[in-house]
């Protein structure tokens, strides 16, 4: 690695030395309480996959370039300089972590290790060794934001077809307006994903609840965050923010995508509208009597997987449980659960990478949890989780069905 590259990477590191990063980099005592709290370590017990093992990769570089002790006595703190071998370690640390923050729950100082790893991801971008798939997807999302007019006609055509499906599901004579677009005066802007299911099921719910809503042209998923590019993350999120402000909506409802929800709700600063997850909205509609679900309609044992970004990182624990307890005659809780729940291994953009074997191994904790419940239906409320649960199901040959919460509700609405 030449000196120019090292200088550039050091500059990138410095750009991420915000206040929380300073605290987190200095705080760790290597007590090891987080050591076995990562689902990847559970499946592949190697130091590299322990939270402290990952954060030390970044911390050693930080000491080398930003601490006098690291420059003068690198031995003291194991300070390491940048080279190609270290960059391989940086990659392994950054892209084996889903950003679930289960380690943070167990850390006696509350160190946010994924926040530390955001520096690792930025180094990989600077080194041009970030996962190409994620870079391309992030670029495509940014580009869509820049030239949305170009996409609109094609999108409207697709939505027209989806409206027919929604009409059929609702048993209505006409399909026009069932998935409104660019509706000024709408109360809710719903942000879906690129998959039809992420639009059809919520559309059924919104129409049934008589909601004054409109669909976003953009997908909620934020590949800028997954790849670790703060600039692209901002641009991708701003597409929706701009759209919501232009339409003057009161509430932005985010599809079952934990990361999209957390970014919009907690990482974009103060916004002029309320941000909710579709799960919270469904719960609200049921509580207000705007929709009714068939009670105890599911007789097979059912369990719920808390998406990390929705649960411990956003506090949406009770709403999905209350909805599912209405639907299921035999609801079973996973153990450990809620903030201690194991990550499935699909977050942080990992499901978009060519790493299925790794994800099956790192999904072992989740597999063991599911098996222990004896459930036949596993429900979650995050696209990444649903995909990863599918990988775990096929990888371990589990006799389970994986369902999304919105889908389950939309399929079981009282006429």
């Amino acid at each position, binding site marked *: 690695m030449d000196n120019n590259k090292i200088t550039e990477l050091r500059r990138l590191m410095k750009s991420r030395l*915000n206040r929380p990063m300073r605290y987190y980099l200095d705080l760790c005592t290597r007590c090891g309480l987080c050591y076995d709290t990562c689902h990847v370590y559970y499946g592949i017990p190697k130091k590299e996959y322990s939270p402290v093992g990952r954060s030390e990769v970044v911390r050693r570089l930080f000491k080398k370039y930003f601490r006098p002790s690291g420059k003068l006595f690198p031995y003291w703190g194991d300070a390491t300089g940048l080279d190609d071998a270290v960059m391989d370690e940086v990659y392994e640390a950054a892209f084996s972590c889903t950003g679930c923050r289960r380690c943070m*729950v*167990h850390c006696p100082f509350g160190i946010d290790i994924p*926040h530390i790893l955001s520096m690792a991801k930025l180094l990989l971008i600077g080194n041009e060794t970030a996962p190409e798939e994620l870079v391309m997807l992030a670029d495509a999302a940014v580009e869509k934001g820049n030239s949305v007019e170009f996409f609109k006609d094609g999108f409207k055509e697709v939505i027209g077809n989806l409206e027919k499906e929604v009409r059929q599901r609702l048993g209505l004579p006409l399909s026009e307006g069932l998935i409104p677009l660019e509706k000024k005066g709408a109360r809710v802007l719903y942000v879906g994903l690129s998959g039809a299911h992420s639009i059809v099921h919520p559309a059924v719910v919104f129409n049934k609840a008589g909601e004054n809503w409109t669909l976003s042209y953009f997908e909620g998923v934020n590949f800028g965050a997954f790849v670790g590019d703060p600039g692209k993350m901002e641009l991708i999120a701003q597409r929706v923010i701009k759209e919501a402000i232009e339409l003057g909506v009161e509430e932005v409802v985010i599809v079952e995508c934990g990361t999209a929800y957390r970014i919009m709700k907690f*990482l974009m600063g103060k916004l002029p509208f309320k941000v909710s997850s579709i799960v919270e909205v469904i719960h609200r509609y049921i509580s207000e009597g705007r929709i009714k679900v068939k009670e105890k309609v599911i007789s097979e044992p059912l369990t719920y997987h808390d998406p990390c970004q929705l649960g411990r990182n956003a506090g949406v624990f009770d709403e999905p449980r209350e909805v599912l307890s209405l639907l299921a005659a035999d609801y079973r809780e996973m153990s450990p659960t809620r903030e201690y729940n194991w990550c499935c291994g699909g977050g942080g953009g990992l499901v978009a990478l060519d790493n299925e074997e790794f994800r099956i191994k790192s999904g072992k904790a989740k597999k063991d949890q599911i098996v222990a419940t004896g459930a036949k239906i596993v429900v979650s409320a995050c696209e990444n989780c649903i995909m990863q649960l599918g990988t775990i199901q096929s990888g371990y040959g589990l006799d389970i069905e994986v369902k999304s919460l919105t889908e389950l509700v939309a399929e079981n609405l009282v006429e």
Partner: protein
Amino acid sequence: MRDAIYYFVMVPMVYGAAAIFISGLLFKLMVAVFSPGIKGKLGLYPRKLPFIAGVAKDAFLISSAFKKDKLLWFFVMAFHASFILLFLGHLELIRNFDFLQIIPHNVFLGSGVVGIVLIVATLYFLFRRFRSPWREISVPEDFLLLLTLFVAMLFGSHMHLAARYGIAGFDIPLEDYRAYLWGLVTLKPVLPDGITFSPHYIIVVLHVFFANLFIMLFPFSKMIHSVFAFFGQSLKRK
């Protein structure tokens, strides 16, 4: 020559350590506080307690450690509680504080138990790091800090416990400690004969030397967790 070295450790090095400790701590705080903030929130859920109560509970009771490793939690709590008593004990070596004598006790408080608890806890922390997986995640700083602390505490504890054997001349009177430490505080350093002529003067010097070393390393090592822990816990609840 020997007297000069001893004097250096007992007086100039103490001032140097105090200066490095205070300026280092201020420097670290300034760097962190004046670093750019972020517009988002990095909190975790659920939050069952109000902000201040939650931060205090997590920082002082270390509930995450209690859930995960009860033996470690026990030693961590014993260590930190004893460390507070150690601090108070040293305050009373400087001068009398009436408010510290609400429960009347001899100076140094704890009848020697404080030092023993600290030594045992430090040894637990040290030996724990000899085992896998903690061995793999440890860096030299982890061992060297614990060793420095262990040696400083060993000599300190010895000074306290050996005082019982006054007949051997090991007992350095409280007045002499107070004359020495009050002299340091008031910038009129003196080394009373009761200390310098004691057969245990070398032990005092070694105790002060390792304590100085530890104090100097404090702001620039992981010991900063004693300050930054509150910031980390605050971010977790924002």
